[in-house]
């Protein structure tokens, strides 16, 4: 009964993984032929400014989206938890971006961010070229990303909040604790396991950001290198430039980076995640 799955996984995933690893040490000569060139792709990659810029852009994107996104999601979840009446309607709205294809979502935001006629500049009274100015390009993508994912994170956190026994709060307020104190002594520790899994998931997804940037930065965008992520660079190297060996090296690097970040988080969780009180 496991045969179809295992055969599929070996053919579709395990073997391709080995191939990608091997291809990262090879030069692609066209038509799927590879020549072994040792570490050359990695040497090229580490000596390439565009690559380091993409690595930084990816990390910068995570810094912009993950803490703010999760804090907002927690805030929304707490509000929804307190006002049960509106839960249904709000949940519907907050979840909506998730079911929309990122390609369509990005298209709408391109219009909102438009430098000349975009509604955002008109509301703010600014003339910022959000998507084509190197200074704001990553920020613009980050805003879209937080907007699309915050509802999903909030729903997960809401489930965590609802598992907190009401009696804890009651006992606490009899003891004379304020709302803010309650948040730090009860809510945060109790919801920390959910918070941790949301954090890991969001970090992994942010490190792989591709589709929003692809839609918002085409080849003619002057800020392209200032906003391209590792996965976008991977796509352009492998499938636009056709350099699949180099592309493989980039994807291996990205996976290594994700692995390191995840391991650090799993180490760090011991300090702040409480699994029982």
């Amino acid at each position, binding site marked *: 009964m496991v045969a179809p799955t295992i055969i599929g996984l070996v053919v579709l995933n395990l073997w391709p993984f080995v191939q990608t690893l091997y291809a990262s040490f090879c030069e692609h000569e066209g038509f799927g032929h590879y020549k072994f060139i040792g570490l050359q792709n990695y040497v090229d990659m580490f000596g390439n400014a565009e690559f380091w810029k993409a690595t930084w852009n990816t990390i910068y994107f995570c810094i912009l989206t993950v803490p703010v996104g999760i804090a907002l999601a927690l805030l929304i979840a707490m509000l929804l938890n307190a006002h049960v009446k509106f839960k249904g309607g709000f949940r*519907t709205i907050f*979840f909506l971006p998730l079911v929309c294809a990122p*390609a*369509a979502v990005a298209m709408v*935001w391109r219009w909102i961010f438009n430098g000349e006629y975009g509604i955002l500049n008109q509301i703010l009274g600014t003339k910022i070229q959000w998507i084509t100015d190197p200074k704001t390009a990553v920020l613009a993508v980050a805003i879209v990303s937080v907007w699309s994912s915050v509802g999903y994170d909030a729903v997960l956190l809401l489930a965590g909040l609802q598992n907190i026994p009401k009696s804890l709060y009651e006992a606490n307020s009899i003891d004379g604790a304020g709302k803010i104190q309650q948040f730090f002594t009860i809510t945060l520790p109790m919801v920390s396991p959910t918070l941790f899994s949301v954090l890991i998931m969001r970090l992994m997804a942010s490190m792989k950001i591709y589709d929003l940037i692809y839609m918002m930065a085409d080849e003619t965008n002057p800020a392209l290198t200032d906003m391209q992520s590792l996965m976008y660079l991977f796509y352009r190297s492998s499938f636009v430039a056709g350099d699949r060996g180099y592309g493989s090296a980039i994807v291996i690097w990205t996976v290594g980076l994700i692995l390191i970040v995840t391991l650090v988080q799993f180490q760090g969780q011991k300090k702040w995640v409480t699994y029982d009180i």
Partner: protein
Amino acid sequence: MIFPFVWMILTSSKTVPESMLIPPTILPKQLMLDNFKEAIASLPFANLYINTILMVFFRVVCAVLFSSMAGYAFAKLEFRGKKLLFGIVLIQMSLPSQIFIIPQYQMVAKMGMANTIFALVFPGLVSAFGVFFLRQAYMSIPDEVGEAAYLDGCNQWQTFYKIMFPLTGTSVAALTIFTAVFAYGDLMWPLVVNSDLKMMTLSSGLSTLRGQFTTNFPVLMAGSLLAMLPMVVLYLIFQRQFVEGIAGTGGK
């Protein structure tokens, strides 16, 4: 939160000069369908809908069918190499899908299957996540249920598809929604594997409009609206299942 959607709908009915007015008009002067006509004229929407529906359908069927079988086996049966095989599932789950893309693309190209529905479905033929997720569903069913079926004369297969599988309904629904939403939004794989406009999905097809209408935002908004419509309509009908399904798959 909802503003971008509202703005998209309003813009999709404006003329180009009207969309560029400063200060902007909120409501369009007229209900105009020309933008939709132009969007449909520049993208083969009928093909895109069919391709997307077929891709989503086959990916869901494969994920549910194979993951149910494997999830059941991993949860309820004893066989040799179980731990090692489950290890393979876990490895695939923890690796980002991009790491498989180049070799997967080469396989599809070698089979001469680029620009087909099969190519779109290919990476979704099996789902490690689905196996993991449904294994948990089967583990939560008490062993006594299977034993009772066995005493009633069911063999292993009958126990599975007559007794056990129907008990995992909510989990299967959750996996279906999760798989469908993910496949629908996926962009990199369809772009890589199907370059023929007629064989693209709604996502990848829409992305080709970027270059074509750089300043004609009303048409771009009309196109985006058409591209997101099917899933939004399904979502509005099956809201509760969507929220619970996606939240359920992520929370584990």
